[in-house]
């Protein structure tokens, strides 16, 4: 059974009070008993002396048994004691407790202890159970003297019931008092214990909150005693812990934020290549969920043995390792993988892997390399023709009237092509370096389109292409007019060049929520699906020979894309091979 502290406190109070009161009652009782016995004895002795003096004054009465009997009975009634008179032979001469006739039959009293003492001249005392009266009796015997000669013994006997009655009353009072005191003590100690326990209970309640991790509670304790000090210490501790926790969690949040906002993917593993954490970039890169992988082996989560090997090597050699790794996820990606072992007291306890997706960098590098190669090829090809034909002419072909003019025309064509190419390249380079400054104005789109269409009229007619446009009057855009004209010229030029005989080119617009979409639709050969994603790349041509034959530089659509994007718009194409294409661009309103 669990006894509460409060109950223990109450019980110990009660125990203490009970013990102290018990001792007091015990000694009081003893003392009282002795005192009252002593008093009875003293009065009995006095009474005995009084009677003895009556008898010893007239010793002859000892022979008058009738008188003695009467005397003993008279006095016995008066002093409420039994009076026995015994002669020196031990024979009972008179007894107040027995009738005159029976006195003669009483046994000899000579050897009763108190009588023996009295015959020796002392006061004999004895408490004894009286077989005659069946109660405890106090016997007191004194000698009856006549000129210092014992002529008999006077014995007084008093039943102790009266003494016991007195003691019983006293004891009853003490016991009642004891219980009353205990009752009162219980009530008072309960109140006291409650007052003592209250603060302790509050401390228990609050510290149990602390144990649950809730450090926001405080113990309200104003007293300055030990409990007050305990409460103050606990409060201080809670406050310190709360501050530390806040500090740590803020730090953690910062780290978490940095960890997750990093573009580089980060994988932290323990020494057995089990994943401890990954960041958001890794989730995206490998299309996994962070919650599913904690504690799993690296290879269980990311099935790339090359990275796994790098991690193991870095931990094994305790050295930083960096390598370019090709990842085959949904698309092929190139990643720079850096693995650093993590040390704790010179012991490798894990690794940190940083994965930098360099696909885009590599792609851009490839594009740049391709571009340089393309530019040199595109520049060198016309130059080769020019140089070759000039040398041919110098070497005597000038005399060849049949061909010389033709050669000059070829030279002229290539010079023009070079000129166009260089202009296009300069345009592109300006736009890419964002150095270009647009002079934006509000202008009517339909006016501009009609001008462009007019410019292509003869070219369209030559090819038998029907060129038409349908734009709402008053449709205005805010843009660089000459650049938008360049966009339209490039798109319409392509639409006519790659059209079939007796085809059509239509220009129209759609008004979207926040932008205007301009569509140039043709009935040409269309673009194969595989080429569509690359059609806006520099020098990308679906049909290289045909493009060159038609005088294209391979940069037209790239320029279109740049101009539109610098106007915060977008370009696109929908095409069905053999049926035609729809090139479109949007310009914000």
């Amino acid at each position, binding site marked *: 059974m669990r006894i509460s502290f409060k109950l223990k406190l109450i019980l110990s109070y009660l125990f203490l009070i009970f013990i102290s009161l018990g001792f007091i009652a015990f000694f009081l009782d003893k003392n009282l008993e002795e005192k009252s016995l002593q008093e009875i004895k003293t009065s009995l002795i006095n009474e005995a002396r009084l009677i003895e003096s009556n008898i010893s004054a007239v010793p002859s009465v000892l022979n008058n048994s009738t008188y003695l009997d009467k005397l003993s009975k008279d006095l016995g009634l008066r002093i409420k004691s039994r009076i026995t008179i015994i002669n020196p032979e031990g024979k009972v001469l008179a007894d107040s407790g027995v009738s005159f006739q029976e006195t003669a039959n009483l046994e000899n009293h000579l050897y009763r202890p108190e009588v023996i003492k009295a015959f020796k001249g002392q006061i004999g005392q004895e408490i004894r159970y009286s077989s005659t009266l069946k109660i405890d009796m106090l016997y007191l015997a004194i000698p009856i003297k006549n000129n210092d000669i014992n002529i008999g013994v006077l014995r007084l006997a008093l039943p102790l019931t009266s003494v016991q009655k007195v003691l019983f009353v006293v004891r009853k009072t003490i016991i009642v008092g004891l219980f009353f005191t205990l009752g009162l003590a219980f009530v008072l100690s309960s109140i006291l214990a409650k007052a003592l326990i209250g603060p302790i209970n509050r401390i228990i309640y609050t510290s149990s909150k602390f144990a649950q991790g809730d450090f926001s509670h405080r113990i309200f304790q104003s007293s300055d005693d030990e409990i007050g000090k305990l409460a103050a210490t606990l409060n201080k501790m809670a406050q310190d812990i709360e501050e530390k926790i806040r500090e740590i969690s803020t730090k953690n949040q910062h780290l978490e934020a940095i960890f997750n906002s990093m573009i580089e993917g980060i994988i932290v593993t323990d020494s057995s290549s089990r994943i401890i954490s990954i960041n958001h970039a890794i989730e995206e890169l490998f299309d996994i969920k962070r919650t599913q992988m904690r504690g799993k082996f690296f290879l269980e989560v990311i099935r790339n043995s090359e990275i796994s090997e790098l991690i193991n090597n870095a931990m094994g050699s305790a050295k930083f390792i960096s390598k370019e790794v090709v990842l085959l996820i949904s698309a092929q990606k190139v990643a720079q993988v850096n693995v650093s072992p993590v040390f704790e007291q010179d012991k490798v306890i894990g690794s940190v892997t940083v994965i930098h997706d360099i696909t885009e960098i590599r792609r851009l590098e490839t594009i740049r390399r391709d571009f340089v*190669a393309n530019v*040199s*090829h595109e520049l*060198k*090809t016309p*130059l*080769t*023709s*020019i*140089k*070759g*034909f000039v*040398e*041919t002419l110098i*070497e005597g*072909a000038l005399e060849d009237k049949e*061909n010389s003019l033709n050669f000059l025309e*070829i030279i002229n*064509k*290539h010079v023009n092509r070079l000129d166009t190419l260089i202009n296009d390249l300069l345009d592109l380079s300006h736009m890419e370096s964002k150095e270009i400054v647009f002079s934006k104005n509000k202008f009517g789109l339909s006016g501009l389109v009609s001008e462009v269409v007019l410019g292509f009229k003869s070219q369209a007619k030559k090819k038998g292409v029907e060129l038409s446009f349908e734009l709402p009057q008053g449709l205005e855009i805010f843009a660089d007019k000459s650049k938008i004209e360049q966009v339209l010229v490039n798109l319409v030029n392509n639409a006519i060049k790659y059209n079939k005989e007796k085809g059509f080119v239509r220009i129209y617009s759609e008004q979207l929520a926040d932008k205007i979409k301009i569509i140039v639709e043709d009935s040409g050969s269309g673009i194969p699906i595989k080429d569509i994603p690359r059609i806006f790349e520099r020098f990308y041509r679906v*049909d*290289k*020979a045909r493009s*060159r*034959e038609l005088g294209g530089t391979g940069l037209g659509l790239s320029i279109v894309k740049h101009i539109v994007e610098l106007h915060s718009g977008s370009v696109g194409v929908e095409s069905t091979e053999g049926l035609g294409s729809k090139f479109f661009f949007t310009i914000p309103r």
Partner: protein
Amino acid sequence: MTNDKKIIIVEDDEDINNLLAYNLGKEGFTVEQVFDGVSAIQRIKEDVFNLIILDIMLPGINGFDICRQIKDDPRYYRSFIVVISAKCREQDKLYAHLLGADCYLTKPFNLANLLSAVKEICASLDKEYVVENG
């Protein structure tokens, strides 16, 4: 006997192809012209040429592939390849040589150099015949 050699020009740029054909023709050579890789491979398989004047950047099958094809063909063990290309990096030249190119001229090439190279090659072919016949 310089004009009995079989020469093929593989060049997708029509004007350059014609330029070479005109000048070699004037020197007394008979030349065949093809304008793309696929027809070049076809002609090389059908016939055996003594000299192949080859561009690298061709639509479809490129010049390196054609070089490889010629190198693997035992009938061509005595033939010469002259590469004309805008690719001017050393590694491209080395690659072409490894694939069996005998001469590499970068565009824009000097016409006189090309012609003298062709003449030299044809003369050496004649010499070999002489040695063999003698």
